[in-house]
């Protein structure tokens, strides 16, 4: 199925007889990209599924008020990112975990994840990514795996391009150091 432009999708959505059809297409068009974005933050498939559904539900509720100041894709990414971060915070609060305990929690999830099909090298890389602070981790994933531009990331995360570049640079350095340490053990 061919992709629709934001304008086409939004025009369809504004027609109340085609609202569901438009949203169905939006879900179809963005579900995979959003899923992987959230999954890299939350690691666990079931959590990702919950958060992705919440993301689309919020998008459905907010789409009427969407003023096209950003691209639809950017707007959806922003909702997804915020939802994923909120989910992690809730999990921390629920399990009464200190802030620095969240990453070990994700690390355990990664090791026991039935839907992790990577090899040893990929596991090592994911573990190294999980040692990063949350924001840096998100920046690294968006830049490295999703190959997103700094401008788009800046819109989604509400952070300046300069700060994002610095963040990515530090992330890469830390990941390399982490992998190096692992190889020496």
């Amino acid at each position, binding site marked *: 199925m061919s992709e629709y432009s934001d304008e086409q999708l939004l025009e369809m959505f504004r027609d109340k007889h085609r609202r*569901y059809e438009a949203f169905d297409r939006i879900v179809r068009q963005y579900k995979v990209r959003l*899923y992987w974005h959230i999954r890299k933050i939350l690691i666990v498939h079931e959590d990702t599924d919950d958060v992705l559904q919440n993301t689309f*539900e919020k998008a*459905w509720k907010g789409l009427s008020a969407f003023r096209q100041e950003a691209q639809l894709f950017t707007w959806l990414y922003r909702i997804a990112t915020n939802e994923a971060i909120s989910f992690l915070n809730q999990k921390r609060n629920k399990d009464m975990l200190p802030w620095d305990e969240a990453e070990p929690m994700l690390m355990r999830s990664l090791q026991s*994840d039935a839907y992790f*099909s*990577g090899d040893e090298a990929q596991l090592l*890389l994911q573990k190294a990514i999980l040692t990063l602070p949350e924001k840096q981790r998100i920046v690294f994933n968006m830049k490295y795996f999703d190959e997103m531009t700094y401008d788009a990331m800046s819109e989604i995360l509400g952070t300046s391009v300069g700060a994002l570049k610095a963040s990515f640079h530090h992330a890469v350095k830390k990941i390399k150091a982490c992998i*190096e340490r692992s190889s020496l053990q």
Partner: protein
Amino acid sequence: MSVDHHLMHHEELDKRNPFSVPEGYFDQLQEKVVFRIKKEKKSVFRIRYYKYVAAAACILLFSVWGLLFLTDTRQPATVGENADEEELELWMYDVLDKTTLTAALLNIETSEDILETCCSEEQEMEIIRFLERENITIAAIVHSLENDGGFY
């Protein structure tokens, strides 16, 4: 070349996606999301509908209350303390300005305002429960007012 060596000495780290999803997940997700928003829409509609019913009931109750306690000339001797339901209903139709009441019921765009000012949330729920129990709809109320009939 070891895996570690590969990661350490190449500018590009391993970019392959190491995660997977259950089979058919994305198709099921599509259905789940669409089902969820349609369900959401239905429940919003139901809440809105209840509000209109509750608003209609408020108008009726407050009209009756106003007529009972505030309008001396309208307080008929025929409705005593022990008046049964039918008697009270007949009295209500006798004394209420049906045209005004019907018009109010048909034009209840401001129902939320009415509820906010005249009903607490508890009272609103009580009214809704009563109307549900008795299976009374706005349409039935309007119809009965227009046709001089009862609510049932």
